[in-house]
């Protein structure tokens, strides 16, 4: 019941919720150590990004493939399972990917060390 009302509201007054989305993304970006945030759709088009276009497109393309691979790996091992989050820690920073069917939320952070 609560969800349908929310959907209705979103349809009727999307601005409210859009503002929320904005706020969420801004909040994530403001955390300590976060270098960049981006939202990419399934085709690799960057919807929202705080980095420059070329970097974003690069990240989008590569991470999309990687996420697909990771998801398929998890599901192959156990079909009941699904990928919820992907974290890649490298020497310089950590890339975090929150996958969804259509969109990818990617955050690059410098962990505290």
């Amino acid at each position, binding site marked *: 019941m609560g969800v349908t009302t929310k959907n209705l509201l979103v*349809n009727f007054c999307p601005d409210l919720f859009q503002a929320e989305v904005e706020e969420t993304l801004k909040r994530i970006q403001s955390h300590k150590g976060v270098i960049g945030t981006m939202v990419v759709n399934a085709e690799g088009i960057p919807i929202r990004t705080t980095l420059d276009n070329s970097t974003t497109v690069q990240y989008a393309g590569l991470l999309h493939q990687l996420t697909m691979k990771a998801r398929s790996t998890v599901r192959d091992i156990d079909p009941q399972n699904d990928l919820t989050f992907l974290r890649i820690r490298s020497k310089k920073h950590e890339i975090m990917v929150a996958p969804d069917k259509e969109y990818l939320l990617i955050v690059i952070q410098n962990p505290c060390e």
Partner: protein
Amino acid sequence: MQTQPVDKSLGPLPSHRDWGATPASREQEERTQAAGTMEIVYVYVKKRSEFGKQCNFSDRLAELHIDIPPNPELAEQFMERNPVDTGIQCSTSMSEHEANTERFEMETRGVNHVEGGWPKDVNPLELEQTIRFRKKVEKDENYINTIMQLGLIMEHCVKQNNAIDIYQEYFDDEDAVEVTEEAPSAKTINVFRDPQEIKRSATHLSWHPDGNRKLAVAYSCLNFQRAPEGMSHDSYIWDLESPNRPETVLKPSSPLVTLEYNPKDSHILLGGCYNGQIACWDTRKGSLVAELSTIEFSHRDPVYGTIWLQSKTGTECFSASTDGQVMWWDIRKLSEPTEVVIMDITRKEQLENALGAISLEFESTLPTKFMVGTEQGMVISCNRKAKTQAEKIVCTFPGHHGPVYALQRNPFYPKNFLTVGDWTARIWSEESRESSIMWTKYHMAYLSDGAWSPVRPAVFFTTKMDGTLDIWDFVFKQCDPALSLKVCDEALFCLRVQDNGGLIACGSQLGTTTLLEVSQGLCNLQRNEKNTASSIFERETRREKILEARHREMRLKEKGKAEGREEEPREEEVSINLEELVAKAEEEFFNVIYSEMKRKETEALKKPTEQKQSPEEEAEEAEPEVQGQGEDEEEEEEEQEEGPEETPH
């Protein structure tokens, strides 16, 4: 070329496994065929002049050279088989071919994704269109929901990262601790038994200086004049690999009490004899004595300690004996000692006052000092380089109640030394001359020998007269030995640790030498052990010094008080006290006796009359005893007090 019928018997001819034979030799063939050899020979002859000529080929009609008709008789050797099993396969016939493809070159290339997959109607280069598209997507309901969800998860992880470093290495800076948790243990590896029938005790052991693969054992009977008739004087050198037979036999004229390898020259051994002589062997020369000191100038008692000195020539040594003398020798000239020092602590060099030396100690890092452990229980520290004889004796340590059987400086801290005697082992410091700084408790059996471990400064070994070997580790435990092993049933007389600290040899009363191996924990230097051991030594030394100082103060005070009092009233007081004591004691004594008598009488009344007489007799006997003992009361008490102080030798 003509084919000629050549007889085989004419000589060796090239035999070709060829078709063709001359008709004349067909008979031969038939014969050979009949024999079953089937050797067909074709022979041709060529003139010498024709050698090397070119081949002239020509056409020729076919000629039949050989015709072998079938021989039906042979068929009788075979049998027809019916039915016959054969495998067949109904499949496509295949043939195997190999093919090698051409080398295929591969290259790895990356593709730079410049733009995402924009839908066809949007031109990625036009900013307006892209913005419009984006805005459209952002308005999408699905988008909003999704982002809210993902945002939550993402935030959680971002915060997590900020909160803690999940890849932090803990305990990075600590080194891998070698924890030797294993309990100390030792096991017997080998036993060397005295092959002689009349068993003698193994009184001294010495390890071979190079490689420690040999052990020299001195055998003798130390019981005074109780050496059985026909006891052999021989001592042996054992090879660790062969415990059944000694490798070398050393034949002295009198049994050896001590035996030492020369640390510089592993062929030379020094032995101290029971009759006081010093003997020297060279294992290359055989088992008879190479050099022997003259009886007149030797010791008068068995030689209990012999040690090689660190000299350039490697031929100097010194010996000590219970006759009270310490003599220095050069083995090249054993007829007379180079120097003699008498262990007279009153410094008057009187042999009559001298203390018998039973153990000797010398550390090569302190070449002028040496220590002597005496039969009377004292340890004397001496300086060889002193100018006068009297100055040679530097100081004495009170030592033990009985002979000091072993004396050794700690190889890591030479200021501290270990002495073993009576029922304890004591550790001394040169600075503390009145008492030892550390000592073990009094054991049930005499301690016969002791040694420090050459690898660990806090470990030492002791042997007891009940056949046990104790391994002490005072960094680990101070009250008891870290390990106590019963090696054999008879008494152990001597002990020697190998240079690497891992093997211990101990000799017993029946001449059995046991070889033990200790666990790794006891022969590896523990972390921080040197510091711990040195701090223990220092602390104990300080404690002893403080106690000494206090004792001295107290003694001075008492002396002062005693001199202040008058003498006469002191004597009277003493006598009065004595009389009172006597009276009191007598009273108590009589009371006890009377009560006993009464008790016996009551018991006797209960029993039948026959036994009545005995308690009465006893009562009569008790009375005169009581009177006689009353006078000796005082003396008895005094005797009782002194009793425990005497120690039976």
